[in-house]
């Protein structure tokens, strides 16, 4: 005797969080049953495998029906088809839009196109995340991207409003959208030590300081694109390294104030010009899309790696960057104070986040 049809429908839609996770992770019904069996659920409840199978199928069906609504979360909130308490709705949405660290690190900064989608097989094998789950996560990125890409106003707020995500998750999505739009390279071997969280932090800093929306909220308020004018102006900073006097003054100011405070004083003194050149060069090159993409590689190669090889501590880096930034203000001949701060504040925050002890 076989059950052709086997369903359970509650007036309040029954949602099992554990099964939801298995479904989100892209496991097939039979895999999910095996995993649930392993969790010892049968011993706890005295149920049989058949019961577990039927229960899993039922939940999967429900999730499948809910998926369509989860694509536009506002629909889930207003629909009449499934009666779900608001707290559960929020849980469903939040979990649906959650993603795996290892997956996002693979996709971050890549174009969210069909081409990338084709590579999901490889990503799936590499990360050991099921293809189904990879597809869901990729489609989520793409969907959020499409909706907020052309939108005015705060990126985070737009995402939150349209996808009803938590503040934290909305910030992460803002980072993903921002990275995808500017196509920052994050996948190189040298960048592997950086976590998604590091990048998300940097993205937030850049969105807050370097985009159009950062300066003037009235003008074409766009959080997604970097402020082109600002990038153009950054060329002006070159004077700090091009003018030999300026460079020397800057160096002596930094050295004076750091003497006795920093543990790697000699190394710092020896390397000052190189480091300063690196930071200013990165700034001046940002007008080219190609260099924007290499922004993080440049930071690592030109700044982090030299410091690492000289065994700077995080504190040393902090002291140096703070002094390096503030000292420029006292260099009389340097006129671009506001520009300098706008650039350096973000660079400093990013570097400190990226500098792992």
């Amino acid at each position, binding site marked *: 005797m076989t059950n052709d049809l086997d369903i359970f429908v509650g007036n309040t*839609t029954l949602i099992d969080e554990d099964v939801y996770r298995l479904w989100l992770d892209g496991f097939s019904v039979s895999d999910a049953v095996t995993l649930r069996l392993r969790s010892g659920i049968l011993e706890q409840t005295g149920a049989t495998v058949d019961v577990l199978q*039927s229960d899993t199928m039922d939940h999967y069906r429900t999730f499948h029906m809910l998926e369509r609504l989860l694509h536009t979360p506002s629909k889930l909130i207003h*629909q*009449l088809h499934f009666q779900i308490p608001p707290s559960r709705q929020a*849980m469903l949405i939040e979990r649906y839009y*959650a993603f795996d660290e290892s997956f996002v690190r693979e996709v971050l900064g890549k174009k969210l196109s069909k081409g990338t989608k084709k590579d999901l097989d490889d990503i799936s094998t590499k990360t050991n995340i099921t293809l189904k789950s990879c597809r869901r996560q990729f489609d989520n990125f793409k969907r959020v991207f499409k909706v907020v890409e052309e939108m005015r106003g705060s990126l985070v707020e737009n995402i939150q409003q349209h996808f009803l995500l938590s503040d934290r998750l909305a910030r992460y999505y803002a980072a993903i959208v921002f990275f995808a739009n500017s196509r920052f390279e994050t996948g190189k071997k040298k960048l592997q030590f950086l976590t998604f969280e590091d990048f998300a932090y940097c993205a937030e800093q850049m969105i807050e300081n370097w985009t159009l929306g950062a300066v003037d909220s009235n003008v074409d308020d766009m959080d997604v694109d970097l402020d082109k004018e600002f990038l153009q102006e950054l060329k002006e900073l070159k004077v700090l390294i091009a003018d030999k006097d300026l460079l020397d003054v800057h160096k002596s100011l930094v050295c004076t104030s750091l003497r006795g405070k920093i543990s790697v004083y000699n190394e710092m003194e020896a390397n000052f010009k190189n480091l300063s050149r690196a930071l200013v060069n990165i700034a001046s090159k940002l007008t080219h899309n190609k260099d924007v993409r290499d922004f993080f590689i440049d930071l690592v190669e030109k700044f982090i790696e030299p410091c690492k090889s000289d065994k700077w501590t995080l504190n040393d880096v902090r002291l140096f960057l703070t002094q390096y930034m503030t000292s420029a203000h006292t260099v009389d001949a340097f006129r671009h104070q506001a520009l300098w701060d706008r650039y350096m504040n973000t660079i400093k925050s990013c570097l400190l986040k990226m500098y792992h002890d």
Partner: protein
Amino acid sequence: MPGKLKVKIVAGRHLPVMDRASDLTDAFVEVKFGNTTFKTDVYPKSLNPQWNSEWFKFEVDDEDLQDEPLQITVLDHDTYSANDAIGKVYIDIDPLLYSEAATVISGWFPIYDTIHGIRGEINVVVKVDLFNDLNRFRQSSCGVKFFCTTSIPKCYRAVVIHGFVEELVVNEDPEYQWIDRIRTPRASNEARQRLISLMSGELQRKIGLKVLEMRGNAVVGYLQCFDLEGESGLVVRAIGTACTLDKISNTAFLPACNSPSKEMKEIPFNEDPNPNTHSSGPSTPLKNQTYSFSPSKSYSRQSSSSDTDLSLTPKTGMGSGSAGKEGGPFKALLRQQTQTALEQREFPFFTLTAFPPGFLVHVGGVVSARSVKLLDRIHNPDEPETRDAWWAEIRQEIKSHAKALGCHAVVGYSESTSICEEVCILSASGTAAVLNPRFLQDGTMEGCLEQRTEETSPLGCGFCHIPYDELNMPFPAHLTYCYNCRKQKVPDVLFTTIDLPTEAMVIGKGCLIQARLCRLKKKAQAEANATSISNLLPFMEYEVHTQLMNKLKLKGMNALFGLRIQITVGENMLMGLASATGVYLTALPTPGGIQIAGKTPNDGTYEQHISHMQKKINDTIAKNKELYDINPPEIPEEIIGSPFPEPRQRSRLLRSQSESSDEVMELDLSHGKKDAFVLEIDDTDAMEDVHSLLTDVPPPPGFYSCNTEIMPGINNWTSDIQMFTSVRVSRLSNINLTNQTLNKNFNDLCENLLKSLYFKLRSMIPCCLCHVNFTVALPEDEVIQVTVTAVAITFDKNQALQTSKVPAAEKTLQRASTDNEEQLQFPLELCSDPLVSQPFSPAKAASLDKASPLAEGHLRHRSIPSCTNSSVSVVKMTPLSFIPRAKITKYLGIINMFFIRETTSLREEGGVSGFLHAFIAEVFAMVRAHVAALGGNAVVSYIMKQCVFMENPNKNQAQCLINVSGDAVIVVRESELEMVPVQPSAPVSQPTSAGGDVTT
């Protein structure tokens, strides 16, 4: 022109994309009532159109207002081709037709299409202006209130309970009309939905007219059913109980009525010598009636033929037998009164299952009748005489059975059909009872509420006392003196179709008891088929009854409530499924055990086997007694002094079958000369039976189940409820089916379904499944469909523990002799179940821990944003007549909805399971939307009356019909109402959230 219907179409949302090119829709709306149609403007290129239409006004007769549904069709405008229909909304405007219900229907309705299901929503406002109608000969019955609830609705008082009303209308089924050869199934299904909507409106109006004739103002326990007779047509029939209801203006007047936890009374040991206080205050003048004594012989028969029935027409005043002699003068007096009250009635039937206190005097037992009919084409739909005659015949039979039990009335009455091809089994059943006449007459009800308390037997055992004459018993039965009052005789077991009366005293908890049975039958045509079914029926009834009896004994209980026996006919088999709630009534004797006897006494190993089985049975009984807290006080046998010493168990079921030829069969359900406590194992069949008895697994710890409204022994419900429907369709793979394998398969199907429910609802523990309603259908050869609807309610274990501080049961028993005030409302939750005494089982706690930490490397957060305020209001649904921990403040009208869903892409929609899952969810959604639009927040007495599922996997097609009904109400949570803090442990503040809160 007695009415003006006004409709406004406000807006739409989430419409489907109808134009692939633009990904948008040009929607407009057609509003149709009767033959008048209005249209809104086209709202171009939007999935969220804002029509904001003018008020469309329909000037119509109130007759039409009652019959016709308001039909709203949403269409996509197409300049070049025909407009495409997006979907429809049918709105029953009946709730707007009586003053105390809803005043406006306003809200979002799902737009429904028979092929695509729900496609977006539409916001509609509907109002009705009614003018007074002075026409005496009017055909409408506006103003008569309808309730599905089978008890007096909570905020009303019954002034008079008039009695039975019934009506049926027939029509040709559109699906079987010639035109369906040329029109699409969709068009035909839409025609069907509309027709049934129309027919149920008409039916309700006609019933309403009958109620007005009886000078009533309401129908309670309204049950409307469809018979899809296929080619011979479509029958819509309804039964109900006409009442005159009075709204209780001061709602605080009867707070106890609204308490969901109908308190069980403690077991007082009362020495009041006269339990028959109910007859102390006769409110009708004594009529000196001469009874024609019928020969006692006629009562010894199990059932009487139809011919006898006819001679027992109510007007003759026969049938009470030699009442006065042995029953004491009170009984005779009472009987006379009731007799007069019920005399005028053709059928003294009541569809109610719960009654005002004092209404039910005695209960005789279950009466049922079945009849097998051959369907023929209904030639003249305006005169559905054949169907009327069939039912009249069955009702007549029920009535005569009740008479044979010394009862004048039948309560908890219901009717059902099972159709397969051209054969139809009509069934009716109820509980024979003697009623207090004062509720049944006009003009005598003044002050009845005040007198009520004094009237009720303080012992709560009155209803158990036999109504029939001890010396002229309708069947041989084993009687003892009542264990409560020691004055009157009671039977050893009691089967009823009603809910447990509130005054009943019970020990321990109750439990769901089911008897399941299959019988193969040969495929046959017409007459031959009907005959073979008729021949099988008595055997099935007998076996179902035996199974129930054995299972009851195995549980250590002595009474069944809410008994419902369903016999389903299929092509090549018959299925019987009986469900009831077993309880231990203190008034009835302690049930004996079950003895097993072998046939071959000299075989050593065999004897050993027998004794092993015996031990198992005894163990099970002991375990069940512990599980359900059944620990009756020991009462020395000599006090009771049974006048009939021989320990015979007898059936209290009285029934008969008649087939189309009006031939009547008689069936002796008593076990003849054999002692029924003894199960004889004389062949493998019997062995199987014993085995199957023992295979019923008790529910897991923390779960209880019953099919009645309330569960004895549990009274601390929380507001956490979850109503659900579960459907299983099973295909029997064996070609060589035998009755045994069939039985086993069916048994497994039901048991597995229950197990699945327990697993799914495990987060609600401690929990009780209430009003568990199983229905069986045989849609095809070798296919069994089982549908279950029930509500799971979490109860509060902690609170129970607190209340257990009251003196233990034994002490109360001894003390209560001085304490014979009737309102001893001690909860019976005295012994805590050791298995679930902890509020949370450790397993659950552990799993919660397990769920919280995030997997390594996962960016998953449990921080969930503060919930966005949902615009969708929560609507609770329950098959019970109340919402736990809440009070019904207003009844808004009945919900009676019929939907058809079809698909031609079954696989793409997730197969049969995906299809039906989505459909049932849609039905729930549409019910909720209608209730919300009426201004309600709950549906009580919800029932899924029909769920007919057909598939054709080869063509990738499926179709399903669902009919649901219930009462839309406004409920207010008790905590809000009284502003008194309830027990802090009660999660009152979380209405439904935990319903979906499953952790593993």
